[in-house]
């Protein structure tokens, strides 16, 4: 852990959290609609993974605002997408769950649980035969680890020794269903350990997440096949804005809030002298400004024109082309 890295982690985690708090406010104000899945509490996973996996292709699930921002997506464009505006990263056609930016090799938010895993595997296959070794990163929740697409994917990736990191963020709840009610064990790595290296880490600790993904990246880059990481984490908010969270106790929530990834990193950094109070104060102020700007940008952006309804269904350039 060095000062520059700690500062980067703090900046991105705080940026992610403030972004989501702003999104929550704007949802309440009626500026954002549909589904909004917040990442609050899980920022260590989103930031630690994206900082470690800085090259290669990323396939994500629907809880992906912080992943997208940590990958380098402009918070303005993400906020505008949440507002459904023309200036949004997906031009207002995708919304909260579908932030795509091929320039960042970022493909996702996929709203079909486990649906993106076979796609990540296929991408890894292509990268391997193209001779590229940066590999593929696929992140998903504990709900996905019970789906057929998950089992197909670990089998194929393992049989073909594909360069893919399967990263499971285990926050214990698939909407309101606890993992122990639908799976024989809470830690899902048991399902995978015969196929590939599989480890469990503390997903509330950004440095641990970063180190684990860095190690996994080296492994897949060496052509040894896939790698599985399970991070235990917790979301403070409900599954989406419509979820009152009645399936879990206040005590449980408090236990995890005491492990807050941002506050703990800050404490640790102050203790070790890696950053001072002034740094945090200034960073927080800077982030407040960035988030305010993002919200203003989204508010002031135009709606898509009705004429754009049919844009992007097909690639027009390929119509009637014979090679």
């Amino acid at each position, binding site marked *: 852990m060095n000062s520059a890295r700690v500062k980067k982690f703090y900046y991105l985690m705080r940026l992610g959290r403030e972004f989501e708090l702003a999104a929550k406010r704007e949802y309440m104000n009626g500026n954002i609609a549909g589904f909004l899945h917040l990442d609050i509490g899980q920022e260590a996973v989103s930031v630690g993974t994206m900082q470690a996996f800085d090259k290669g*292709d990323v*396939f994500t699930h629907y809880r992906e605002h912080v992943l997208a921002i940590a990958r380098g997506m402009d918070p303005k464009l993400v906020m505008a997408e949440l507002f459904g505006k023309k200036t*949004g*990263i*997906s*031009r*207002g*056609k*995708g919304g909260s769950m*579908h932030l*795509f*930016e*091929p320039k960042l090799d970022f*493909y996702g938010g*996929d709203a*079909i649980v486990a*649906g*993106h*895993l*076979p*796609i*990540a*595997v*296929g*991408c*890894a*296959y*292509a*990268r391997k*035969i*193209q001779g590229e070794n940066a590999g*593929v990163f696929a992140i998903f929740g504990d709900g996905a680890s019970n789906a*057929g*697409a998950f089992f*197909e*994917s670990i*089998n*194929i990736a393992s*049989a073909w020794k594909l360069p893919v990191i399967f990263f499971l963020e285990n926050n214990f709840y698939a909407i309101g269903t606890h993992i122990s009610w639908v799976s024989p064990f809470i830690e899902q790595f048991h399902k995978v350990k015969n196929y590939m290296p599989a480890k469990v880490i503390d997903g509330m600790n950004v440095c641990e997440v970063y180190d684990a993904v860095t190690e996994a990246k080296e492994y897949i880059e060496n052509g040894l096949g896939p790698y599985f990481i399970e991070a235990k984490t917790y979301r403070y908010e409900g599954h989406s804005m419509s979820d009152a969270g009645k399936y879990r106790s206040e005590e449980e929530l408090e236990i995890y809030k005491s492990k807050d990834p941002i506050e703990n990193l800050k404490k640790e950094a102050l203790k070790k002298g890696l950053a001072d109070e002034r740094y945090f104060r200034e960073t927080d102020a800077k982030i407040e400004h960035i988030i305010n700007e993002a919200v203003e940008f989204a508010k002031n952006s135009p709606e898509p024109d009705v004429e754009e309804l049919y*844009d*992007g*269904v*097909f*690639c027009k*350039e*390929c119509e*009637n*082309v*014979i*090679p």
Partner: protein
Amino acid sequence: MLYRSALNKAIDESMEADSSVVILGEDVGRYGGSYRVSEGLFSKYGEKRVIDTPIAELSIVGNAIGMAIAGLRPIAEIMTANFSLLAMDQIINHAAKFRYMSGGKMTIPLTVRMPGGVSRQLAAQHSENYETLFSSIPGLIVLAASNASYAYYGLKWAIFSNDPVVFLEHELLYPMDMEFREIKNFDPFKAEIVKEGKDVTIITYLKMRYDVIEAAKELEKAGINAEIIDLNSLRPLDIETIANSVKKTKKAVIVEEDHKTGGMGAEILAQITEKCFYDLDAPVLRIAGEDVPIPYNRKLELASIPTPEKIVKKILEWKAENGI
């Protein structure tokens, strides 16, 4: 040329011309393909580009989408249309929607090939036509190859299209020896006027083309000169060619192997009604598969789908009923 050889030639030439073309599916490699469509490709292009997959259709298409995102041009083979249901999430929720959901940023140059239709006594889980399911999904192009020429040109077009294409074949066509016509300025979306006629327009596609051609010979003897249209493309539908013909003959019959309820014929009929209502001299006739799962017994199996005899009989009855 054999129908399956035309498909093989299209894939072979595409793989030769562009190293990003790959084919994947159950038994496509070492085995040579269940219907021998990929025969010889494994030895020519190797295991990296001719990929034997596990029996996991969701992954065959899902993996292919990932390959397409990474810049390959994958051809995913589904052994039988029935099994495509296992891959439906990938075809519909992913392949068809990525481009739109991403505001036009994602490009999915994917071809999903599959044979369907009623063959010989394969029973209900190996005898299905699902063209309506695919054709009702925005974001998919759906082509249906009934002959060697379209199989060759259409498949080549599909492989090099930057959009996801569902390419439908029919199990009974693979071993058929067909005339191969060279086509200049091939348009995949253009319907083919198989035979010109003046009394009635018969619209069909895939294997029913041949049953209709046979039926038309009998109808000729009864004094009915039928115009036959083979659709080739089910989405988009070449309604222009259909409408022009119906305006000429004033009468339309749709022949499909698919079940009647909610089948392709229902959509074609709706579009004819929208475009040609005042040109019609009689209600449009739909000759379709019965609304039953396809039975194993040969007699019952034949009773569940149109045959040349049934097509003739139904058209003559329809003619008498409507005084035409």
